[in-house]
């Protein structure tokens, strides 16, 4: 069993850049551009690993170790989410709170690394990231709490086993609200369009890019890979919590293959959704982001309240 769970985690980490490539490609096709190849992110990572690692004079040990801690925390978070099979490496004992706070660990060290650069971009990115993450934490946790209350367990593996037993057609209000809240938070957390534009370098709007402005070479590669992994972890979390049907019951190879196929299909659907959203909405002004996250919080609180009414 252990090797299966390790494989699942490695699968998530491996396909992370691919997911970003697919999203970029789909956005290009929607805006009828040809767009770069789907494997472009892997090439970028390979290139960055070979380049020089530049550090500003004022940088301290935190600047050098921040990318590594960010990467480590995010990859450990990946070990929690059941992807192909019901049980994940740490999914049985650890629960979603651990996952959320591991992501918080990576975010915290990323903003520290940004502040260490000594330029105003780092501070700007860290300050905005602090705003977004502070307000995103409530809906993220409350959405998962709502589902956990219904499933009567906090471990992700437990939630998956409970949801699989529910029949597909009867959609509960709690799940709908929780999914909406978590979807909004996923967009905010991974810095997609309405909250932050991953491709821009415009001081007025960038959050994630501003933090990593000083990084280059292997450090930048680790950070980019980590943010890709974070995106795929959040998508996998959404799939596991809300649409786990199709996960392999047993350990036989055909079942796993079928489950992997189902997982990839679901990820593709979500990627398509992200691409459509990003192509149709403009980025929100910085001071409208709190309202965006306010809506997510309201949805999550409603979900929690509904769990009590549903009983």
């Amino acid at each position, binding site marked *: 069993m252990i090797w299966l769970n390790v494989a699942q985690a490695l699968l998530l980490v491996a396909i992370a850049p691919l997911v970003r490539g697919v999203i970029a490609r789909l956005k290009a096709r929607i805006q009828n551009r040809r767009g770069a190849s789907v494997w472009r992110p892997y090439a970028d990572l390979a290139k960055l*690993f070979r380049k020089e*690692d*530049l*550090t*500003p*004079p004022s940088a*301290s*040990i*935190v*600047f050098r*170790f921040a990318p590594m*801690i960010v*990467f*480590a925390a995010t*990859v*450990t978070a990946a070990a929690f989410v059941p992807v192909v099979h019901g049980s994940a490496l*740490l999914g049985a*004992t650890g*629960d979603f*709170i*651990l996952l959320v*706070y*591991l992501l*918080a*660990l990576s975010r*915290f060290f990323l903003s520290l690394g940004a*502040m*260490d*650069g*000594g*330029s*105003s971009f*780092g*501070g*700007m990115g*860290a*300050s*905005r990231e*602090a*705003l977004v*993450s*502070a*307000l995103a*934490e*409530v809906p993220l946790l*409350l959405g998962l*709490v709502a589902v*956990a*209350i219904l499933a*009567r367990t*906090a471990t992700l593996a437990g939630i998956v086993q409970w949801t699989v037993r529910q029949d597909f057609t009867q959609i509960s209000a709690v799940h709908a609200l929780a999914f909406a809240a978590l979807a909004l938070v996923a967009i905010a957390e991974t810095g997609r369009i309405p909250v932050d534009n991953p491709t821009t370098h415009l001081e007025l709007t960038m959050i994630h890019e501003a933090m990593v*402005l000083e990084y280059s*070479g*292997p450090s930048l590669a680790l950070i980019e890979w980590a943010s890709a992994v974070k995106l795929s972890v959040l998508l996998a979390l959404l799939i596991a919590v809300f649409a786990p049907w199709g996960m392999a019951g047993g350990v036989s190879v055909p079942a796993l293959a079928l489950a992997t196929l189902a997982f990839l299909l679901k990820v593709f659907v979500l990627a398509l959704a992200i691409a459509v959203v990003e192509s149709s909405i403009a980025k929100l002004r*910085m001071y409208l982001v709190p309202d965006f996250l306010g809506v997510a919080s309201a949805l999550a*609180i409603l979900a*929690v*309240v509904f*769990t*009590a009414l549903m009983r």
Partner: protein
Amino acid sequence: MIQTFFDAFLIGLLCIPAVILVGGRQRPLRVLASTLLLIGLLAGTAVAGVCFWRGDRLAIDLSQLTPLPFAVAVDRLSAFFLLLICGVGAAVTLFSHSYIEHHYSGQRRDWLWALLPLFLLSMMLVVTASTAFAFLFGWELMTLFSAGLIVIDGDSERRRHSLYVYLLMMHAGAAAVAAGFFLFLPNAAGLSFASMRTAAALMPAGLRTAIFLLAFIGFGTKAGIVPLHIWLPKAHPIAPSPVSALMSGVMLKTAVYGFVRFGFDFLGGGPDWWGYLVLAAGAVSGVLGVLYAIAEHDLKRLLAYHSVENIGIIYLGLGAALVFRAHNAPVWVALALLAALLHTLNHGLFKSLLFLGAGAVSHAAHTLDIEELGGLLKRMRTTGAAFLVACCSIIGLPIFNGFISEWLTFRSFLAGSALGSMPASVVLPLMAGVLALIGGLAAACFAKVYGVAFLGRPRSAEADHAQEVPFAMRASMVLLAAPCVVIGIAPGFVLRPLSAALQPFLPGTVLPEEAVAIAGVMPWIAAAVLALVFAATAIRRVTRVTATWACGLPGLDSRMQYTSTSFSKPLRRVFSQVYKPDRTLEILPADRPYFPTAISYRSVRTTSFEKSLYRPAVEAIVGTAHRLRRLQTGNIQVYLLYIFMALVALLVFMRFA
């Protein structure tokens, strides 16, 4: 054997002030005294540890000597708090060994060394007292000695006002606690904790509620629950750093100890609205505490507000425990209490570490305003590292101890949602949301503090020339940082004895399975993260130092970095209702706005509990005093009239009564 060790330790601590006051002048004698204190406290930690882990019971009874029954008894719960006091006390003594030598001289220094052991002793007396007289004796002495230590540190109009508010509120709180104790009397034989426990069972509900509310207000004042917190950001910053570390890290915990003794040990829980009251207080304190902290840029005031926030988190745990007690779900009560007590220990560790860090920063850079600091990590490597560990712990990041207690609190809220009754299954999960908000905001605040103060470029000459602090201070900070990480990675060795400590008032509860789960998974997570970090360092790389990117312009100076005010600006805008800031922008010269020589921006928080709640009350009292003063007219005829009227009034009262 432990008993004699414990007595020797107490007596030893008692005679240190005498030694210092007598021979404080010579340096060797002072060094001897401080090392004696350090050894004493380490022995105290050992004794407390043995009592806590092995569960021995110690007792000292001085009732024949003292005018009223005065006894000390150490059970597991007291041992837990004793461990916290002695442990943090030892680290603080080590720190102040060189801090006091540098910053104070002559009589001030002698008095500091004399009052410090007495302050620690009074706190130990509070947590180990087993009669009301002993408890109140220690409780008032604790305030007195801390006030003495604050007075030594200096004198100014603002300090006097802060000290006055502190002493007055502590006295009012002590009066409420005393009333809470005395209300046991109609039913209890004496004022010893044992007789109070037996009396609590046969008391009418009304009396139990009165006692609970008095305990809540009395201990809430000392702990710093929001409406009663105004002394905390005034008193802690003006104390010497080692003393404010003790006050924030340990003294607030004696209030939590008192509240747990009253709420769970004596009264044994009550109706569920008690729990919701405590939850509400905890939530409001937590959120407002962290929001006020975000707006601060004086390091000590910021840390003081964070004490309010962390006490809020502890009260959230206690509130959940009270709700479970009302629904008599003993396992979940154990879980919630475990969470609250563990957070008390964790906060004791990292908050005192933060204050010692602040002391080290003020020692090195002579200022505590983080707007003028920056780049201290490169100049003060150990202090920076220890401060980073403390920041991660207070936010509750996984590998550090703060996370364990916040995680347990989350799981107790989650468990609470399974309770059938209506309010509980909605309120408790929402409290999980509140805790998440507090955690998020704390992360933002400490990213600001650490980023602005320790990273980036120094913003002032002092910050630039900051030197690393002497060895004793560094050693004490490392001594406090180590347990933060150890408890974070392997919480099991603290959780098991702690749940055993709850046995007396939660009979038959075993270690909750959530605690077992976290104790199991945390080592693996830590191992995974450390392994991946090690793997990442293995990547071969060529590093080169180049100038920071400044959009190609030359001359990037330190003032272009984000300051703490600008960092917290977005969050302050979102929560502007909480601050209701009154902003003033001044451009000089006024007549040529487009060619300014100087622009000054000032934003002041106008909402303050002191103005809206306390000022009217004080004015009413002083108003009555002035009206009463007019009764003393000075005219002898009026005085005689008072006597005759009093006589007539009494005769009429007697006639018709």
